[in-house]
């Protein structure tokens, strides 16, 4: 019999298997849907990205790639060392922004838009359009912003954060609290020896970084961090440190700043980097010449400074009091019963260094300014052009009008779409409503100009801002001269500006400092491509008398005009005149005088028919001072050759002990015949030089000898043969195969106009193998 039918097992098994599969399938299916969501990625979370960016900017201090203690990101020169921008002062102070970080973040000339901001603030792979802007509440400063202008009609996410910007602290030293009269009494300073004339005063400011940072009872918001914030020291009321009746007796200047660390070691010698100072409100370069301080001086140190890396820093300021000759006080400066001594007048009452600390008496504490930070993140491709609203596009162009101070700029509206109203914001607090205005800028700066146009239906569009940069060249002079243009000269960015320097009569330029670097005594200077504030400062001194050191060429023949290529000397001023003079003779003036530089003059002298001889070279400046080079220039008469013998037809007049003319081949000679002396022979000739001065002898000769001491001599005598002077000699042993020409210098006056003048050649050989050849003997002179 059959067992129970198990055919049904097939179906049951199948169904069981299928059920299990189904359950698992349902479960898996319920897990999957979330995976598909990411396909819709980037367009959703504009608000989330804006929120994240807001947190990064408002609450995070930023992150440089090296630890912050070495160099916080706001001090880095490029964006490569920055991992993340963040504007907060520190992690403990969210919503409090650092002024320096804000300035750097919004400065588009430091970081490049948009790549730097995308990679360091916005993050993410998708390139969002973004706009980050910051406005200070209650201030006239226009909002700063970086990024695209996102149209109001496109979809975007935004966030608004309320923040405060922390301004750095300022130390204020009121110099009027310095002891004025107490030490005027000489007996009050017995340590000063009589006659001592101290005019140097030191004032010390102490920055104790650990004391500032480790103050835990203070709210970290108002903490002064000297390593990260700007340090500003104002010393005011310096004009009130001296008694009223002696106020104009001294000029105060700050001559030295040194920074000393707590070990007493000198930390740094000037020039100190990242440091500016302002004297009476005008900024100076630390290496340029500084004027006297009238009232106040401000020192401004930008981080990183020396107290970034050290704990205690003593800033030593050395003030020097220079006596002023126009002192009107009793007894003048140095006379009288109590000579004025500088140190008695600028002496502070502090017994310890001035502390840069939390005492409101010493330091204006950091202030907070309320601000609003808004971030917008939008979609779409980036556009850095004008906004488009209702078909209206705002744009403009501009160009410089004329140079000089003040600077005028022409603006031209180039907006498209019909529009009726204009609103120009020139970036300096002024505005205009014309369509093509001309605006004058009176101060240096970077001005952000925007144009907003409106059409008749009320729509408006704002153009992309354009920055007009105006730089300033400060031209100053000392007394006794001027520079044109002078003062604070405004220069359009990237253009040139020329300056002309004119000393007063009787003065000359002492030195021209361009940006603190000496350029010598130039009379004009052109700043090319001005992109930063520059300075030029000129000092003058009493004009010195010119001096003449040399003249090239230094001689000339009196039949021509000679052109002087280099009359060298010093202190030549424009308008100088040149002349040659000699006692008893009329002056020879120089013509076509060209003062090439204070050290060189070119000119021309007409020497025709002038007396030969030594003349003085004189240079007279326009102010009457003159200098002279005595006997610097020689005028010569043209030479005349009055005797010549080539030995072609004989040797007339020569008295020869032994020797003869030769014409053989292979011997050194000129043309056919040459005179030959051998062994110990000589020959002489009386040749009168009567009627001639400045005698020059010329001949050609060659010697062959084989032993030292066998020489050839050319001599002359001025007394008829009694004594001989050597013109030239050839030392043996030598084997000269061709004639050497010898030209003597001008012979001494004994040879002039002398009837007893004689020439002699001799050879001191030992055999007939020692031979001297002589040819082309000539004597020249200047006819009297």
């Amino acid at each position, binding site marked *: 019999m059959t067992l129970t039918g*198990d*055919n049904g*097992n*097939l179906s*049951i*098994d*199948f169904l*069981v*298997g*299928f*059920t*299990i*599969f189904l*359950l*698992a*399938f349902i*479960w*898996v299916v319920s*897990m*999957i849907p*979330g*995976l598909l*969501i*990411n396909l*819709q990625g980037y367009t959703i979370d504009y*608000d*989330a990205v804006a*929120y994240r960016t807001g947190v990064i900017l408002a609450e995070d201090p930023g992150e440089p790639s090296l630890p912050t203690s070495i160099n916080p990101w706001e001090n880095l020169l490029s964006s490569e060392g920055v991992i993340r921008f963040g504007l907060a002062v520190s992690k403990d102070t*969210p*919503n*409090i922004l650092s002024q320096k970080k804000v300035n750097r973040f919004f400065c588009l000339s430091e970081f490049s838009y948009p790549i730097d901001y995308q990679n360091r603030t916005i993050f993410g792979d998708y390139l969002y359009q973004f*706009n980050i*802007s*910051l*406005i200070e*509440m209650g201030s*006239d400063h226009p909002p700063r*912003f970086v990024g695209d202008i996102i149209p109001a009609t496109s979809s975007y996410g935004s*966030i*608004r*954060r*309320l*923040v*405060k910007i922390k301004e750095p602290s300022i130390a204020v030293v009121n110099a009027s609290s310095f002891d004025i009269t107490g030490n005027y009494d000489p007996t009050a300073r017995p340590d000063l020896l009589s006659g001592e004339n101290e005019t140097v005063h030191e004032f010390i400011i102490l920055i104790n970084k650990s004391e500032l940072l480790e103050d835990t*009872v*203070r*709210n970290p*918001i*108002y903490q002064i961090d000297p390593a990260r914030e700007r340090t500003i020291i104002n010393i005011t009321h310096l004009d009130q440190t001296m008694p009223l009746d002696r106020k104009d007796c001294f000029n105060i200047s700050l001559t030295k700043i040194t920074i000393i660390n707590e070990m007493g070691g000198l930390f740094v010698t000037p020039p100190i980097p990242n440091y500016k100072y302002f004297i009476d409100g005008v900024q100076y370069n630390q290496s340029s010449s500084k004027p006297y301080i009238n009232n106040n001086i401000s020192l401004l140190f930008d981080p990183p400074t020396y107290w970034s890396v050290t704990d205690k820093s003593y800033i030593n300021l050395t003030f020097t009091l220079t006596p002023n000759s126009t002192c009107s006080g009793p007894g003048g400066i140095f006379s009288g019963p109590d000579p004025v001594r500088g140190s008695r007048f600028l002496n502070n009452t502090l017994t310890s260094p001035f502390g840069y600390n*939390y005492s*409101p008496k010493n330091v204006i504490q950091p202030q*907070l300014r309320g601000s*609003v*930070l*808004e971030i917008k993140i939008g979609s779409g491709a980036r556009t850095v052009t004008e906004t488009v609203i209702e078909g209206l596009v705002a744009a403009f162009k501009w160009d410089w009008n004329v140079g000089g101070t003040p600077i005028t700029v022409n603006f031209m509206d180039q907006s498209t779409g019909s529009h009726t109203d204009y*609103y120009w*914001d020139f970036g300096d607090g002024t505005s205009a409503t014309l369509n093509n205005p001309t605006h004058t800028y009176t101060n240096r700066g970077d001005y952000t100009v*925007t144009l*907003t146009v409106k059409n008749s239906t009320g729509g408006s569009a*704002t153009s992309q801002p354009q920055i007009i940069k105006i730089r300033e060249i400060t031209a100053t002079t000392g007394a006794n001269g001027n520079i044109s243009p002078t003062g604070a000269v405004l220069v359009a960015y990237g253009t040139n500006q020329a300056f002309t320097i004119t000393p007063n009569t009787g003065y000359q330029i002492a030195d021209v400092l361009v940006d603190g670097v000496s350029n010598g005594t130039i009379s004009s200077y052109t700043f090319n491509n001005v992109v930063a504030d520059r300075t030029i400062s000129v000092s003058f001194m009493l004009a010195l008398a010119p001096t003449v050191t040399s003249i090239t060429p230094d001689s000339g023949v009196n039949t021509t005009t000679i052109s002087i290529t280099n009359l060298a000397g010093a202190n030549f001023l424009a308008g100088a005149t040149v002349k040659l003079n000699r006692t008893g003779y009329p002056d020879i003036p120089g013509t076509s005088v060209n003062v090439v530089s204070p050290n060189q003059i070119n000119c021309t002298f007409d020497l025709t028919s002038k007396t030969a001889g030594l003349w003085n070279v004189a240079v007279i400046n326009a102010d009457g001072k003159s200098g002279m080079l005595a006997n610097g220039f020689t005028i010569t008469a043209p030479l005349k050759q009055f005797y010549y013998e080539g030995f072609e037809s004989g040797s007339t007049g020569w008295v020869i002990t032994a020797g003869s003319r030769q014409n053989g081949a292979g011997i050194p000679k000129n043309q056919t015949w040459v005179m030959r002396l051998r062994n110990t022979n000589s020959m002489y000739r009386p040749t009168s030089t009567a009627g001639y001065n400045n005698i020059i002898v010329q001949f050609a000769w060659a010697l062959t000898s084989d032993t030292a001491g066998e020489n050839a001599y050319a001599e002359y005598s001025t007394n008829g043969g009694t004594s001989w002077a050597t013109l030239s000699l050839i030392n043996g042993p030598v084997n000269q195969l061709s004639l050497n020409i010898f030209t003597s210098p001008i012979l001494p006056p004994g040879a002039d106009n002398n009837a007893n003048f004689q020439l002699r050649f001799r050879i001191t050989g030992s055999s007939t193998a020692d031979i001297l050849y002589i040819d082309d003997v000539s004597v020249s002179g200047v006819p009297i």
Partner: protein
Amino acid sequence: MINTDGQLYTIEGFAAALIMIATAYLVVNATSVYTAGDTHISDMQLEALGSDALTMMAIPTNTTLYLTDTSPLRMIIENPVSVSNATFRAMFLDLTNGNKTGLPIDYNKANSTMDYIQFSASYTCRNTTNNQTESYPLSNSRNLTGGEHTVRATKWVIVNKAASVATPFCGSTTKQDHAVLVEVQLWRD
């Protein structure tokens, strides 16, 4: 014998199920899923704004010692009620609804697009005698009707208010430091 051919089906079902589950589990566990959806974004923004406004008000104004800092918020709580109400209201509304960037300066402020954030503020303190918390109203821009969708922002303040038996502060009759929680409900109309 039992016909065991069908077991193949069962095994196949098991195998398929296990493969599916294992794969899906591995894949899904590797990602965390956030949905699209703009729900709660305005809440997030409002909460950030309210917190910021309270933070601005709680920043002390002078730089003396930590505990004696006098922030506007603390002065408001320590001072008589009528004055503090108006001060709080003006300050808070100015902070949340006020200046915005992106607008040209000098334009007619009446045309600027103001925000319409409303608020209702109160502060809570602890009664030292019976250890219960008590809430007192501080200020509001308009009364709550109950239909608003609000977000809450809070801020702790340490106050030291003069108190006596006649005028206790939160049950305390002596002048001492108290920690007080300021709560602000914000919503947009």
